[in-house]
């Protein structure tokens, strides 16, 4: 039977505790850092050669869907009642929202070095040392809202701009495409600076610290953020009906700039033995409350 992913803002104290305990156990077992390494390994940019799977590509959504399922499996091996909650950042928008409490994800980083000092993932607690990070501090960092030059989280209307696009993705299937649900949700756009940071990308910036880098998985909020991104894919499918399918359906041809650089609907999505087509319908695995 399908399990339920809940809004993080609605979890009971017990649900919060069990989610946190499962995460700490997955970390203690050494499994968590494999997720960090994998995300790091699969970040390839679209101005470089080679296959892109996790970012700047149509498979941004199925790649992260499968990535979350793998983490969820690891959590559920520890505690079968646990699922990944989602962070509705259109609603829980402040540094004092239900996420950033000492019994859940902990608070903001301190001003001096952005080190998270409260909650179960604070370095001082001894259970969450960053093994694979972009810096050598070993502690989790955040800069919620970016103190030095504040920015806001994306709004419902920002999200709506992505959701209303009936096309999943379009050529050239990268970070420069201005059409399509996928890139509007992933959040790459033209121009530079704050206005160009949209939806998914903008949330990484708002959290700051570890979430800015290729090892963003080190902050547990990564999973809650991506569960909400995943929920948008489901919502988009529901809104646009049965024709709203993953694109491209077929691989780009030999003469195409994107030849062998993206994953088409029925191609295997590395590193897994699964296709985007097989990841489009998750109804039998989980649903969102």
């Amino acid at each position, binding site marked *: 039977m399908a399990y339920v992913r809940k809004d993080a803002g609605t979890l009971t104290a017990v649900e919060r505790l069990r989610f946190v305990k499962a995460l700490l156990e997955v970390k203690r077992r050494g499994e968590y850092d494999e997720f960090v390494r994998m995300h790091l390994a699969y*970040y390839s*940019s679209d101005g*470089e050669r080679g296959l892109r799977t996790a970012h700047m590509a149509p498979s941004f959504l199925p790649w992260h869907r499968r990535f979350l399922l793998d983490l969820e499996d690891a959590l559920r091996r520890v505690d079968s009642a646990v699922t990944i909650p989602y962070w509705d950042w259109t609603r829980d928008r402040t540094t004092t929202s239900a996420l950033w409490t000492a019994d859940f994800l902990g608070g903001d980083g301190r001003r001096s070095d952005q080190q998270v000092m409260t909650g179960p993932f604070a370095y001082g607690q001894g259970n969450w040392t960053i093994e694979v990070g972009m810096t050598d501090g070993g502690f989790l960092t955040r800069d919620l809202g970016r103190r030095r030059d504040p920015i806001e989280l994306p709004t419902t209307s920002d999200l709506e701009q992505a959701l209303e696009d009936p096309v999943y993705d379009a050529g050239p299937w990268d970070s420069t495409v201005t059409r399509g649900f996928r890139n509007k949700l992933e959040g790459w756009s033209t121009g530079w600076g704050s206005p160009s940071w949209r939806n998914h990308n903008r949330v990484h*910036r708002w959290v700051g*610290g570890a979430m800015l880098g290729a090892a963003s998985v080190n902050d547990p909020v990564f999973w809650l953020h991506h569960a909400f991104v995943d929920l948008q894919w489901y919502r988009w499918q529901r809104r646009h009906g049965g024709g709203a399918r993953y694109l491209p359906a077929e691989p780009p041809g030999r003469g195409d700039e994107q030849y062998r650089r993206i994953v088409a609907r029925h191609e295997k999505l590395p590193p897994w033995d699964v296709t985007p087509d097989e990841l489009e319908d998750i109804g039998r695995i989980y649903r969102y409350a």
Partner: protein
Amino acid sequence: MVVPIGSAPVGAEDAVPRPAPPGPAGRTRRDVARGLRAGALAGVLAPVLAAFRSPRPGPAETDPSGDTASAFERTYRGRRIRGVWVPGRTTAEDGRWHVTVDGRPLHLMRRADGGWLSTVDHYFSHPTPLEAVYAAVDTLGPGERLSDAASEPGGAGHAHGEGRHGVRA
């Protein structure tokens, strides 16, 4: 490809990555002396052009003209930044920026629109390599140093070294 010091940059255009690095109008070729002045990695310098738009003012700049360069060296917010363009050794290999912050390597990537991003500031791109490095430094806390992981390109589907092209399941 190693271009002898003082020679014309023959073949340099071939090594310019696709898409070419963005630049201001009227970018000009410079000889390798600029790169040599930067000091680091002189042995692999070549005069491939990469442009810098209006670098932010910073203390102790050693490259004051700084609008077009194949290398840079700066102090920014107390951090020593060095960068040098390393061309691909074959036509099948892209060139890349070799960048260090306080001596620690920082991996830079190109975006298809010509922008640049680093492993430290990974969800946002910047008009020039130098600005991408500044953005990375902006994220560092006082005394915080880059780790070994910050120098690593994504291994899967990424193509900096031989044998990594077209990685595909």
